[in-house]
């Protein structure tokens, strides 16, 4: 792994737009302990933040974790350093989406049954989170 050349720009943008500074994290990993969906993450939330601290921004963006994050805000509610990880994950998602790296949700993949049963709220939010 190596530091991405423009990692400092990425971190600066993240700091400004999300109001969250990865440097404030002391890696207590409480976020990972609190996360209800950590089981299917390839990197635990605190590891994603660690990658950002070290400047491995490409790896952080390639990780599944930001896409698994359900924005349930449990991590933010319990973080002892007052970091809002949900905002940081959103930042990583947005960078990837704005780079037009492809959408993460294809309407064709949904079954007719899902389309019928899913609450509208889930469909709209799913597409908002996963596509640009």
């Amino acid at each position, binding site marked *: 792994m190596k530091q991405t050349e423009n990692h400092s720009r990425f971190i600066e943008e993240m700091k400004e737009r999300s109001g969250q500074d990865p440097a404030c994290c*002391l*890696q*207590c*990993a*409480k976020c*990972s*302990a*609190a*996360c209800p969906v*950590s*089981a299917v993450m390839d*990197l*635990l939330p*605190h*590891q994603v933040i660690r990658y950002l601290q070290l400047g491995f921004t490409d790896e952080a963006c390639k990780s599944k974790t930001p896409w698994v994050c359900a924005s349930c805000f*449990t991590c933010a509610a*319990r*973080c*002892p*350093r*007052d970091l809002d990880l949900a905002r940081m994950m959103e930042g990583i998602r947005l960078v990837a989406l704005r780079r037009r790296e492809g959408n993460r949700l294809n309407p064709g993949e949904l079954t007719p049954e899902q389309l019928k049963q899913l609450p509208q709220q889930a469909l709209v939010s799913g597409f908002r989170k996963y596509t640009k």
Partner: protein
Amino acid sequence: MPRVGVFICWCGTNIAGTVDIETVVETARNFPGVVHTADYRYLCSEIGQDLIKEAIKNEKLEQVVVGTCSPRMHESTFRKAVAEAGLNPFLLEVANLREHCSWVHQDKTEATAKAIALLRAAAAKAVLNAPLIAPRLDVEKRALVIGGGIAGIQAALDIAEAGYPVDVVEREPSIGGRMAQLEKTFPTLDCAACILTPKMVEAAQHPQINLLTYSEVEEVKGFVGQFDVKIRQKARAIDATKCTGCGVCYEKCPTKTESEFEMGLAKRKAIYVPFPQAVPNVPVIDRDNCLYFRKGRCRICEKECPPQAVYFEQQDQILERRYGAIVVATGFDQLNPVEYGEYAYGQHPDVLTSLEFERFFNAAGPTGGKVVRLSDGKPPRNVVFIQCVGSRDKARGMNYCSKICCMFTAKQAILLKEKVPEARSYVFYIDVRTAGKGYEEFQRRAAEQYGVAYLRGQVGKVFPDGDRLTVKGVDSLSGKTIEIQADMVVLAAASVARGDAAQVGRVIGINSDQYHFFNEAHPKLKPVETHTAGIFIAGACQAPKDIPDSVAQASAAAVKAVGLLAKEKLQGEACTARVDQSGCSGCLYCEAVCPYGAISAVQIEEHFRGEKLTRIVAEVNAALCQGCGSCTVACRSGSINLQGYTNAQILAEVDAICL
């Protein structure tokens, strides 16, 4: 115009790196009255001070201005140097070119311009300086120690051993403090009571020590050498001179309530001693719970007391006494983790704070020394310790590290293994911090010999599920989330200042930091002094601290107090207020605002056109005046001035800065 000398310090590169010294010196040469300028790399060094002394002699300087670090740092150093050269020490002004200039600005042009302005102001003030003489004050040869925990006891013993009488004021019915609540102490695992009790008894029996338990300080007035203190001795409702400490009263008392000493885990009676080794061994009637005080009947203790010591009519007494020095050692609390809902504290009986858990190991404790679950009385198999509950937490707790938790958790895990050999301990930590003699070795012993599992990470939530506690945590080193079926959860809650510390500090007259811990005068060089001369601090009221540190600081505070008491006379404040009696109309508004009662009315005689007149004017007692200057503003005719900060001087500074 007096002959002024200006001396600029480079402070290595600290000032010279940001301020252009040459420009400053050049400019200063043209300030009014300046006849000599010089600069040096380190003006506070001996060579630097000699430079000033030489110049005073050779150039016949009458006023000295130095541009250096903050006057709060080295003003006294340069005053001494000036005095050694034969000038009055108050003929010196300091311009703060470091803390207020070179360290807070980066642009050299701006910093240089500001340095010149600050120096110009100092020079303008200096030409108006007058020689001042500090009054000499008496010292009351007695010390007051506030707080009877291990720090207070140690300080009292040290002062008493040096030959001075000491009063110890303790709010609780017994001395002993937090240490008395502990079972064992790290890193040696010796029993807390075994090492504390002898000290408590020694303090009680020392001819120079007077214990005022169940008492509180109500008011502190005066100043170093002469603090006038009001102490409320709360009524125990027991005649201590008659009580033999037999304990019949609390055996017979029918009313039970929660024991503070046992952290609410056990009951005590309404008449009680907090713990068996209490000093003094004299019970107290808790009036909020006593049947007689609440409903006017019962009086069983009175009937049963063999020496007839119960005395319901006893009233609080106010003791007024003068002290030369005060040591504050009021201790700490453990944070109530109820804010941390995810740990289920307060919702499940098997989630405890470490101070509560400590009582489980004590033979006189709530479980008689057995480590068992409060929910079902069974010994635990899995115990999870959670570190940093409220420490290092700027969101909901304290931003600082509580310092002692890593060690007391290792201790409790070891004690647990000894009491319940089949128990497993899991410690969730962020960092293990064990700086201290024998500390790291102790913690490693817990991990290596006692099999305590250290997991680097935190706990997300404790789920009281069924009869066990599901602890969901993470081990960040392996990157694995971890679920433990625990029987007990122990929270290493942060050490915090006493709930009323801010109020207590206000009464005593010392200030505290943002967490309400009392402030030391200098974080490195004056660790036991406060900003109020003659008041010293010791123990965990200053910051979280373990026993060895508290004892060391207590002894240090005692030495400072003794050093003060040993002085024949103290030097008072030189910058005091002075009344120009010719202009004074005798309205005495000044008297009303003076916090020290230093101003009083006097009658003076005047001769006016051959007639003898008498009138009332204000007069300042220089020994009492502390130099705040409040009176100077209250004076309608401008007849009171503060020496060293006269109206003319401050106006001159304003003019010089605005030039």
